[in-house]
């Protein structure tokens, strides 16, 4: 009931993935506690001015009342017309804070300081946008579970300039962040002889050119194939040249080898830890999950594929 009322009142709806602008119908404003204190002080001052018949006291109270009203408009203005462009999220591990980047764009000739963004009231980010400028900021959200973390409704609020009013707006850009399982530090399983999938040997190395793939955020810009990327109008993500060769030890990280008594999430954590350790050691490794297998490989792209599989696997 209350939720429906709020839904109606605040016009909660998805904002999609495109940039959007805050119109006046979605900016709400109420006095803060300091604003109520200010109003109370004004009332007492007015009574004092009447009681002592202070003409200038009246003027002072009325000036301050006008100041409060003008301040209300300015607080509203601090949000009104702000443009918000959702960005791309980098994956994080469980227990870390997921960052949902937003670009705030201000085309007004006055700055917009003291903007507060929060999806979770305990994790508030403060941002300021200069006049006719834009700024990058990010909404933080603690990742509790692996998989896709969908950005919930964000509250964008401000109390600038006087702190007497609190203006806020609800934003719901369609953003999600991939959460990897939390890596558990356990010793790696022993390396095994590489008798299977020999032709895949050394995928992700640095020696022989083996083709293109889409660039992942973890890839170094040195590996971007600029010419190839430019070929079809810049509409695709950047491409990365892939090379073969250069791997050393080979590991099989399998679901069956993890601690069978632990709960499935714990076992995924263990696998994640292994992937991280194997990658750090520069080993080639294959990942065997109950619902899929990833072939032997190494390098950041392989690691990312493995982590994604670990994040999204259903056990």
């Amino acid at each position, binding site marked *: 009931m209350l939720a429906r009322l709020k839904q109606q009142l605040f016009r909660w709806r998805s904002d999609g993935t495109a940039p959007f602008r805050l119109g006046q119908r979605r900016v709400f404003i109420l006095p*803060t506690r300091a604003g109520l204190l200010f109003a109370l002080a004004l009332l007492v*001052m007015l009574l004092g001015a*009447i009681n002592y018949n202070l003409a200038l006291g009246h003027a002072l109270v009325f000036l*301050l009342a006008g100041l409060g009203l003008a301040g209300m408009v300015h607080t509203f203005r601090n949000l009104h017309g702000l443009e918000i462009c959702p960005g791309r999220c980098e994956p994080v591990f469980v227990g870390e804070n997921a960052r949902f980047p937003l670009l705030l764009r201000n085309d007004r000739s006055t700055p917009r300081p003291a903007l507060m963004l929060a999806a979770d009231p305990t994790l508030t980010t403060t941002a300021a946008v200069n006049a006719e400028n834009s700024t990058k900021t990010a909404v933080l959200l603690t990742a509790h579970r692996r998989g896709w973390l969908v950005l919930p409704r964000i509250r964008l609020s401000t109390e600038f300039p006087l702190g007497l009013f609190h203006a806020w707006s609800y934003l719901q850009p369609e953003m999600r962040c991939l959460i990897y399982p939390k890596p558990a530090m356990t010793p790696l399983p022993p390396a095994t002889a590489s008798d299977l999938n020999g032709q895949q040997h050394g995928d992700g190395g640095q020696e022989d050119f083996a083709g293109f793939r889409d660039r992942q955020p973890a890839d170094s810009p040195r590996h971007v194939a600029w010419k190839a990327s430019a070929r079809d109008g810049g509409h695709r993500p950047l491409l990365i040249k892939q090379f073969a060769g250069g791997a050393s030890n080979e590991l099989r990280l399998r679901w069956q080898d993890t601690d069978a008594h632990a709960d499935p999430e714990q076992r995924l954590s263990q696998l994640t830890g292994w992937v991280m350790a194997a990658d750090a050691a520069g080993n080639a490794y294959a990942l065997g999950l109950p619902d899929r297998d990833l072939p032997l490989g190494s390098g950041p792209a392989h690691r990312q594929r493995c982590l994604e599989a670990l994040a999204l696997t259903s056990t």
Partner: protein
Amino acid sequence: MSTAAQLALDRGAPPWLFSSVLLATAPHCLHQPVWLSVFSGLLLVWAIWLWWRDERLPGRWPLIGLVVIACGGILLEFRTLFGRDAGVGLLVILAAMKLLETRSRRDAMVIVILDYFLLLTHYFYSQGIPTGVWLLLSIWLVTAALIRVSGGAVCQPAPTLRHAGTLLAQAIPFMIVLYLLFPRISGPLWGLPQDAHGGRTGLSDTMSPGSIAELVQSGAIAFRVRFDEAPPPRQKLYWRGPVMEEFDGRNWRPHAASVPVGRVEAVGNPLRYESTLEPHHQRWLLALDAPVLLPPESELNGQLTALSRQRVDQRRRFAMESVLDYRYNKDELATILSRNLVLPPGINPRARALADSWRHSDANPQSIIDQALRLFAGQEFSYTLRPPLLGENGLDQFIFESRRGFCEHYAAAFVFLMRAAGVPARVVGGYQGGEINPLDGYLVVRQSDAHAWAEVWLAGRGWVRVDPTSVVAPARLEAGIADALPQGEPLPALIQIRADWLRTLRHRWEAVNNAWNQHILGYDPQRQRELLSHLGLPDADWRRLAFVLAAVCALLLAGVTAWTLYQRPRTDPANRLWQRALHHLRRRQVDCAPWETPLALLARVESTHPAWAPAFRRVVDAYLGARYGEQQHQLDVLRQAVKQLP
């Protein structure tokens, strides 16, 4: 919800708070006890020191100790915590002390609101122009501090001050509207504390030797008068205060019993005028002798003194009418006449003997009066603010030995002689004269114009004013006190000014002050009614007034909102024209992609809409020329081209 309030203050914020507290409390140093100023000053310095050294703020117990000390001091000084001065003192100290425990934004907000509150308290002491200007400056800085606190470290000083200025400028229309239309109630709403009105200068209701001479040494303005017609000559301006009928050998007092109001027979035409009284905390209105028409809420007493129902505790305006020539109480009650013949037994035997000798030579009261005036005029009597101290038979000493005195000595001696000679007589206190300010035409009467004269009752004529000062120092009535006194008398410098330019400067300052008092401070319920009937809202009750007020404020708010929200971004004019051209295209279903350059767009238009591509080509050429070229008048070409788009 208010997470911002719990945020810690950044290091740049406290200096704003220090200066706002300093500005809001500094003027109180002028009147509060020195120890209070020093105490709060030390607290402020301590807070600044801790901030400077980046040290921890003191804990709770030291602060509680300080509060107890401060409250104790205030209790000792003022004997209360809740009077006006005590309350202000407490607020000053609390504001300084709050600086010592300001850690979060919420604390800072409390300080700022306390500052705003403190600004109000200055008006208890002065509502003059300097106070007004100082407070406007203070509000500006306090508001800037508030912006700095809620905006955080990104706020630079200059933009913060500018923003505060903008806010104040936008608040001023609201202030004016509320000031004019907010339903005014004349206070007080409840009893004021004992010390609500400090600083009493003005006539008192008793007269003793030296009491008026003391008052005369103040140049403060007692009241201002605006006559509807030309003001009467100065020596006729007797402003009547208390009438003193009882004499105990040294002091003169009004008689306690009230008597019925007598009858004024006007001889001349009544004179209309409006008097603006400074607060003197007495009831008398200091009407021109003799009042015939009084303002509402006032009355005439049996001694022809106009009295207000309430004490004049604030500057107030009264419209009155007086006649300069009059007869009062030709048929006076016998009790009053006998009361005005009473003298304390045994004192001043020589004066009594003198009066007796006059009565024996000629019992006609008029000749007795003439005898007395001749005495003061002829012999070595002088007019001075510094008479010698008089002993037990003071009047004997004065008349026969020292012969130096001020108007109260002459009035008292005259009345004593008259009573001793059997002529009913009494002392009248008030003011005499005044000075016209040529700039605004107001007659200014100062404390230095305070005066005392005598009144005698003559059969067939009633009470007649006799001013013995007029024979001792005629200049007192014609030119004023400064000319009547010899050089070197302790008169305030303000009155002694003889240089013309200084006098003009003083007149100008006083005229400005008077305009401020009359038009800004003097805006009272009555003026409000007048304004409302001008605006076509005669006898509007508070409900209608509230409605009008709300409507006007809503309009203003809409105006301010429109002004602040819809300021067009400062775009380059060429860009603006280009956007207009794009708008034309959009109506024809051609959208310019964000990455599309004008030339790329043109190429697309040429292939899809060849019919009006030439017109668009002219726009693109002109736009590129205006944006990147160096030729003059390209903007006009562009404007033309945009206009010619189909």
